């Protein structure tokens, strides 16, 4: 049994309590800057008084002591928010927040209905930890402006930050009573409910707050992200309630991503009314999904954005995502050659390679060859090389090394030193050339790592059996490849255990019996790292089959006999799982 979810506020309060003087000053300065952003709108229309301008200059120069004096003068000459906030900032930097108390009292006496002065006053007492004065200032403010939500809002925010949710709750309830509704306090109420672990009321409050203030979506998702699994459906219901509005849906999408539900995140956004705002959101979401390699979602989001705002860049991104998502045929629809893009050289540079990649993915190497030929005059060398390599790879997959070489030849003499040429050398068994060419490969891939791991350890420069094994692998013939790697191991004693292990992995991945190969590695190469891996894999298989005793025997043997192996932590973990000493993962 366990306990309920807890607030972020408690942590915040601890942080606040422990905040050093410097941190507190920075905190105040940040608040002041945030507020200044709002105030400056008003100030923009006015020309700054010279005293204020001078004080700001001194502050910008980091001369805080001089700036304090200058802001104080400015407060006398031109009392206003700019001077006050400036004084607040530099006082915080110098740890002299207490010097704000007197000027604030004067300003508030002269302008009792000016919210910014009251807000700074609350903040000042918060930083000074004068809870009694903080409360008193709030009460005076509420009395002075009984129909204004600001006092309740500002004081409640401070209380939440201080980790005093119960008091914040009573302030919000007072505000509700005074104002007649929670409408103007939804944001604070939502934060408070989240801090108190009341997830559903918080989500409902966020839903209402976000309707008017969609820019708070990030704050909402941050506040609700810690909700336990049991509360999440309720949160979903609240934020997804109709009508579908950008703010709540954006918050829900962020939450779903946070909870690892990327498809649900997209589902939250896709039902928005297709307009400019939605398209912007979809495009942003697609960019994030693309960066996280969630190709299907990126494809759908780009496509949705493209439908609202058709453009070549969007279509290209959608096509690229489609290709990676395993829907190459979508490329022909999204970016037809000779479609939206009229510039042939640009088509050749940006769109044609997508078509080539799609054709290669569909196994249509001949069509890809023909397409390259059609655009040949527009191709720059880099693009020519890229597409030639794609086509060469397609020919290799189909088993035609001659056509692969021909395809590569179209890229010109540079192709001889390309990565693709390296692969062809490997398949031919010309290990020396392969070693040299593949070493310069720019993009590390698992295939490359596997090949390099072997060929750098092979001492001879010619290894046709090994080439045949890698060629079978490139063709997707894993059964044949496994047999050929076993065959090659007989010719290359220096990498025999590694080749046998590849063969075993290929078998195991297909669900075939790899035990004979593991046994052979352990018997013939007992001191090799591959023997340790073989024993570990064997034990894993036995555990999966329910043979706990067999798995335990192998794991204990491995741990006791290979104490220096890098696989020891994995072996220990397997042993824990076999014993039932840790929860099943």
């Amino acid at each position, binding site marked *: 049994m366990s306990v309920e979810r807890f607030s972020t506020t408690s942590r915040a309060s601890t942080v606040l309590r422990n905040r050093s003087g410097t941190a507190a000053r920075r905190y105040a300065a940040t608040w002041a800057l945030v507020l200044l952003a709002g105030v400056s709108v008003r100030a923009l229309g006015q020309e700054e008084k010279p005293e204020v301008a001078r004080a700001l200059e001194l502050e910008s120069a980091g001369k805080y002591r001089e700036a304090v004096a200058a802001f104080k003068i400015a407060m006398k000459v031109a009392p206003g928010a700019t001077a006050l906030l400036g004084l607040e900032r530099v006082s915080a930097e110098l740890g002299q927040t207490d010097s704000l108390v007197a000027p604030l009292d004067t300003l508030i006496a002269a302008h009792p209905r000016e919210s910014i002065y009251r807000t700074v006053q609350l903040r000042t007492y918060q930083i000074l930890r004068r809870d009694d004065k903080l409360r008193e200032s709030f009460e005076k403010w509420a009395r002075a402006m009984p129909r204004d939500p600001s006092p309740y809002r500002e004081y409640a925010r401070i209380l939440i930050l201080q980790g005093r949710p119960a008091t914040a709750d009573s302030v919000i309830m007072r505000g509700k009573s005074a104002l007649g509704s929670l409408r103007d306090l939804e944001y604070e109420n939502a934060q408070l409910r989240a801090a108190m672990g009341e997830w559903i009321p918080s989500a409902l409050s966020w839903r209402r707050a976000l309707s008017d203030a969609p820019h708070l979506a990030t704050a909402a998702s941050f506040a609700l992200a810690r909700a336990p699994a049991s509360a999440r459906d309720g949160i979903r219901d609240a934020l997804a309630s109709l009508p579908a509005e950008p703010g709540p849906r954006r918050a829900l999408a962020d939450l779903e991503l946070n909870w690892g539900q990327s498809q649900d995140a997209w589902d939250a956004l896709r039902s928005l009314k297709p307009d400019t705002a939605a398209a912007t959101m979809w495009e942003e979401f697609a960019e994030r999904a693309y960066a996280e390699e969630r190709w299907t979602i990126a494809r759908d989001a780009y496509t949705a954005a493209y439908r609202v705002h058709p453009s070549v860049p969007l279509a290209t991104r959608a096509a690229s995502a489609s290709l990676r998502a395993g829907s190459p045929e979508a490329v022909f629809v999204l970016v037809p050659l000779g479609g939206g893009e009229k510039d042939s050289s640009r088509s050749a540079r940006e769109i044609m390679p997508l078509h080539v990649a799609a054709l290669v993915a569909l196994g249509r190497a001949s069509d890809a060859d023909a397409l390259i030929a059609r655009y040949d005059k527009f191709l720059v060398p880099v693009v020519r090389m890229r597409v030639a390599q794609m086509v060469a790879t397609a020919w290799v997959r189909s088993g035609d090394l001659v056509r692969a070489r021909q395809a590569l030849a179209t890229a010109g003499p540079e192709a001889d030193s390309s990565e693709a040429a390296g692969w062809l050398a490997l398949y031919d068994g010309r290990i020396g050339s392969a070693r040299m060419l593949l070493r310069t490969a720019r993009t590390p891939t698992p295939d490359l790592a596997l090949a390099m791991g072997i060929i750098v350890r092979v001492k001879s420069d010619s290894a046709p059996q090994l080439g045949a094994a890698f060629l079978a692998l490139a063709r997707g013939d894993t059964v044949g490849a496994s047999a050929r790697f076993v065959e090659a191991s007989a010719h290359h004693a220096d990498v025999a255990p590694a080749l046998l292990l590849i063969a075993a992995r290929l078998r195991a991945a297909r669900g075939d019996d790899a035990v004979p190969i593991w046994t052979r590695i352990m018997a013939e190469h007992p001191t090799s790292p591959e023997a340790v891996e073989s024993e570990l894999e064997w034990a894993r298989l036995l555990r999966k089959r329910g043979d706990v005793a067999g798995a335990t025997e192998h794991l204990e043997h491995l741990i006791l006999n290979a104490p220096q192996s890098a696989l020891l932590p994995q072996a220990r973990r397997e042993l824990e799982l076999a*014993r039932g000493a840790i929860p099943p993962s």
Partner: protein
Amino acid sequence: MSYLRRVFLIVLLAAPALRAQRMLIPMDDGQTNHLKAYGLTYNAMKTGVQAEWLLNYRGGSFLLPDAPELRRRASLDGISFEAITDAQLSAIRREMASGNMEAVPLEKAPRIAVYTPAEAQPWDDAVTLALKYAGIDFTPIYDEQVEQGDLTKYDWLHLHHEDFTGQFNKFQLGYRDAPWFRDMVAKNAASAKKLGYASVPGLKKDVAERIRLFVERGGFLFAMCGATETLELAIAGHDVDIAGEFADGSPMDPDADTRMNWKRALAFKDAHLEHSPFVNSMSDIDGHQVNVPGRRQPLGTFTLFNFSSKFDPVPSMLVQNHRSVLNDYYGVTTSFTKATLKPGDIVLATEEGAPWVKYIHGDYGKGTWTYLGGHDPEDPQHAIGNPPTDLSLHKGSPGYRLILNNVLFPAAKKKPLKT
């Protein structure tokens, strides 16, 4: 006898003294798996091996004979050990004699029972998690076995989040319709009926009474989380209706507070019951009130007291650790308010400046009790539905060490106090 032969003979005779005689299991930061080290020591004792607990020496190390099987187990479990000679051991003992350190012989592995439903997974409870991980065997027992008198078969009993007031931790407030909650209520109600009780609170009170007797007669009790608070309430409220109407069909006695008999309780006194069925709290014993919005207190850190290992070996054993300040963690009952502690309670860990303590211990009759607040030392914000803690990721958990200290301390041979 020639000179050379004499030298050879001397070397031969001296050789056993130079060979490794013992295995030192260090428990400071040099240990790679603190939790498994407890299992190694416990299981060694179980096979008749004599062990020693070197209190305050390198984090509370263990001393075992240097036997091949123990080496094998240590290697398999990734436990650091050092083979030491008699000469090295003598040096260690000299060092210990000069400071606040003491060697305590560990003689007999205690027989362990954990009060938990048969169908519960070991991952539901920090103690069973720790026992499973350390490889220490235990027997789950529940109401039926307790009512049959099975407690006499064990030396050490652990309780975790059971609500001995029979109110199911008031989880009906948030989980009334959750299948697991309904299932738990139904099973407990059926069990109460089968065992001849009118309600679950009636059954749980009797179980609490049997646990009290278990301690009084010499048993070792270790409780965590909600079991600490509710066991005490059930014992002190033995003759009072302290359960809400939803639990037994009748409202709580309005005079329950004044009718509680705290003399019967093990650790607490003068606590005030929470009368509202809508407030997820049992009493003011818990300082953190985690499930009560508005009352909940933030988590801090707690500090283990440093006892004299020579004069207070029992509390000293209970706080052996390689850390003295630990992060706090919530539970249904997270901490114990100082105002409700009995004068004889020994406080083992407290949060500086807070009105509560974290870890307490005391004698009762011929036995002892130890209470540790909170649910899971490595999951401070644990919530229902969260994944279980994987202790292979917390091999050196100081919080879990406190739990395992409790498992080993009943094995210690009582020595007469030095005066």
